[in-house]
């Protein structure tokens, strides 16, 4: 096993959400690292308990961040999942494999399925409180209280051409490619649309390559190595057709996977990955571009709350939730706060315990619904305590999770993707 050796100090126990839930050492990073090492060295025959321990990790990267020795616990656990491979193919595991390895990589099939689902979803009346509709609520009851997103009628690829040019009255300053991710491209395209709009207004030509596929994170996080490597090779090949330009992401998990997890096959692509909000912030800081007070009040228009108008004197109160998958890139959080704070109609407030996991990122809410529920509720309460009108995150998983729990708490605050505000 590569990298520094764990010294068993136990510091990682202080930040692991899974350990704090179970209160059993076996479900903490120190034990997972030790067990993974023992299995890799042939000292331990992996049993059901090993599988449970490895599976219970949320991949929030908190153990990696806190380790004084520099042990990358999250990566060791991820490697252990990949080494375990298919494992015991129970019905649940077969379903997981079908979704992550067969369904997600097939963009066209996914697009059609979502369109059909979206039609049925829209048959039912809108929930007056916001983005969750009755059908998803009913479905989420069946799926163990997990919420389903509001599905877009048309995918981003149906709405926009492969190449979006800046308007005629704007000087062209460069070219960027967009890695939409499954969510931003197919499921909820609002943030992607606003991003493309913001980029165009700043003079960028945006390439939205139709052939792009899932980044492979669901397959990798679930331990399906072959599907992950396929996704890597596929995306590397697709984005090779847009060489020498930044590739922007809208999702922290996609960002982590593309920039940190892609190996030799995807190294060139990995080097070009930039978070879209950070890209906008860097542009605006360099060239200056601050949106005036929008006519369309963002809170009212986007989220149907906050009746009083948003003004510079009475700004929209925005809290920033930092997605776990940016934990090792702290500059992202700083850039987003600066970019939000630069808008006169926004006042940024901090949530207590910054960096705490909400349980919604990656596939954690599917693999560990109980922990995800506990974390989601705690984070939603932190949003309420902060007095924010809106909490933003650059991760569709976090946004979905926070909205779900804010709604359960009957809170007025809502969550939205950071780009839905920055793109104004």
């Amino acid at each position, binding site marked *: 096993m590569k990298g520094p050796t764990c*010294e*068993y*100090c*136990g510091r990682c126990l*202080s930040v692991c959400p899974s350990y704090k839930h179970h209160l*059993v*050492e076996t479900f903490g990073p120190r034990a997972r690292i030790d067990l993974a090492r023992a299995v890799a060295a042939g000292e331990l025959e992996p049993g*059901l308990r090993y599988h449970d321990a490895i599976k219970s990790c949320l991949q929030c990267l908190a153990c990696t961040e806190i380790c*004084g*020795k520099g042990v990358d616990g999250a990566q060791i656990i991820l490697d252990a999942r990949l080494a375990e491979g298919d494992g015991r193919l129970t019905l649940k595991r077969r379903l997981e494999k079908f979704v992550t390895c067969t369904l997600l990589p097939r963009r066209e099939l996914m697009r059609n399925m979502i369109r059909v689902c979206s039609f049925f979803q829209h048959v039912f009346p809108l929930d007056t409180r916001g983005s969750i509709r009755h059908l998803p609520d009913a479905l989420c009851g069946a799926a163990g209280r997990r919420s389903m997103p509001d599905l877009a009628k048309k995918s981003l690829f149906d709405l926009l051409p492969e190449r979006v040019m800046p308007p005629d009255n704007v000087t062209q300053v460069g070219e960027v490619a967009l890695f939409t991710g499954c969510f931003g491209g197919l499921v909820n395209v609002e943030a992607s649309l606003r991003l493309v709009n913001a980029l165009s207004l700043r003079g960028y030509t945006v390439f939205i390559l139709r052939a792009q596929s899932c980044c492979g994170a669901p397959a990798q996080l679930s331990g399906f190595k072959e599907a992950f490597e396929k996704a890597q090779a596929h995306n590397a090949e697709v984005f090779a057709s847009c060489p020498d330009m930044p590739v922007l992401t809208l999702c922290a998990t996609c960002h982590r996977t593309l920039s940190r997890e892609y190996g030799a096959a995807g190294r060139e692509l990995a080097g070009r990955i930039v978070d879209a909000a950070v890209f906008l912030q860097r542009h605006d800081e360099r060239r200056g571009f601050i949106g005036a007070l929008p006519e369309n009040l963002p809170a009212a228009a986007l989220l149907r709350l906050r009746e009083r108008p948003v003004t510079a004197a009475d700004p929209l109160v925005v809290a920033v939730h930092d997605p776990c998958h940016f934990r090792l890139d702290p500059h992202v959080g700083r850039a987003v706060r600066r970019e939000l704070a630069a808008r006169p109609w926004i006042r940024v407030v901090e949530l207590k315990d910054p960096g705490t996991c909400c349980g919604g990122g990656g596939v954690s809410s599917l693999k560990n619904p109980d922990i995800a529920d506990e974390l989601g509720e705690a984070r939603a309460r932190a949003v309420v305590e902060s007095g924010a009108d809106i909490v933003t995150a650059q991760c569709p998983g976090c946004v979905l999770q926070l909205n779900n729990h804010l709604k359960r708490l009957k809170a007025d605050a809502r969550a939205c993707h950071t780009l839905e505000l920055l793109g104004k």
Partner: protein
Amino acid sequence: MSLPSDIAAELKKILGPEGFLDSEEDLRSFAYDLFATHRPDAVALPATVEEASAVMRLCNQRHIPVYPRGSGTSLAGSPVPVLGGLVLCSSRMNKVLEVSVTDRLARVQAGCVTGNLQKAAAEKGLMYPPNPTSCLYSTIGGNVATNAGGASGAKYGVTRDYLLGLTAVLPGGEIVHMGNRCQKDVTGFDLPRLLCGSEGLLAFIAEVTVKLIPMPESIRTALAYFSDVTEAGSVVADIVSHRILPCTLELMDGVFLRTVAEVYGVPCPEGAGAALLIEVDGPDMVLEGQMKTIEAICEQHKAVGMESATTEEERDTLWKARRGGTAALVRKADRLVTLDYAVPVSLLPRALKIMEKLAEEHKCNVVTIAHAADGNLHPMVLYSPGKPEEDAAYEAFCDASTRAILELGGTISGEHGIGLEKKAYMPMQLGDEQMRIMRGICRLFDPYGIMNPGKLER
């Protein structure tokens, strides 16, 4: 080895499937601390005092070794189940039961993480001062069992100084409430404080009542650099002689400072061979004068550089050297072992000099830091285990430094405890009579010797 099947079945009945673990993966996970590893035969995770009591009664009847454990963050091997048997872990008993502002106390279950107790107290404007480096992940039960200290020991004392009472489960299963909620109590022997520092040899600690104090109004921080550790050591003695008791007085040697400069780019003044991180806390109006006196003392001792902080942000920058230094060293070495000794403050400069000399003599890479105001020094040995000559040098340095500290009139452990690490040296410090009394006390609490066997020779 595994437990006899009837005992395992009985334990499962007492604890339920979540509280009794015996899979290979679980046994491996409860085998270690920072110093040693040994696989237990089973693990018990009681959720209540009553469950812990039933487990202890059964183990006592069947003479099964019991190893109490909190988070397993000991540096001395204290909770490691060297003879197999049962690990009795308090992690599921983790609640803060009460914080009383009027009675100035908190009642917590043993598995409560010390940082959580501090947070609960702080929410009511109170402070639980003992502050071991591991306070965010070690448990209060473990802190009591080892009488944990930390960086603020000189001013605020250690765990024992805050212990008002505890609920202990004796090996026979008896649940005994020792001490009480009174701030003063001279009735009978002070049994809670006897159990404090007993390293799991006498009983399982299930619940703890601790004294709290009002949160200090402000804190001031300064970082001063000196030419060598002896000079820095003299500054410590001088500050204390001026009747100032800093809440932090951390000493760092030259190697430590150079590592920080190398890894983090934190500049270190020319000619600096040691540094002192000094903090005073209390009413704002008093601190101004105290800091002026401290600055004057540092100047008298020819400080080669000095920075001070009044805001939390500035304070964080100054602490970066101390916190980041340990992390930087840990990353540089295959293994870093932190040793733990304490000497009277007046002898600290000599002790530091001896450590330097011994490191050179044994060709060992040693970096020393100290909680200087209470004379507690931590030589940190960096080496690569598995290389025979480095292993031998490490062993030789540990042996020589321990003996040198004893000769100097110091103690072989200021805060980490004895465990397995210093077990052979304890009789040298305490002598036959004290060892006999300790063994007698062990027999009184634990006639069958089931509590943490393999540590103290009985």
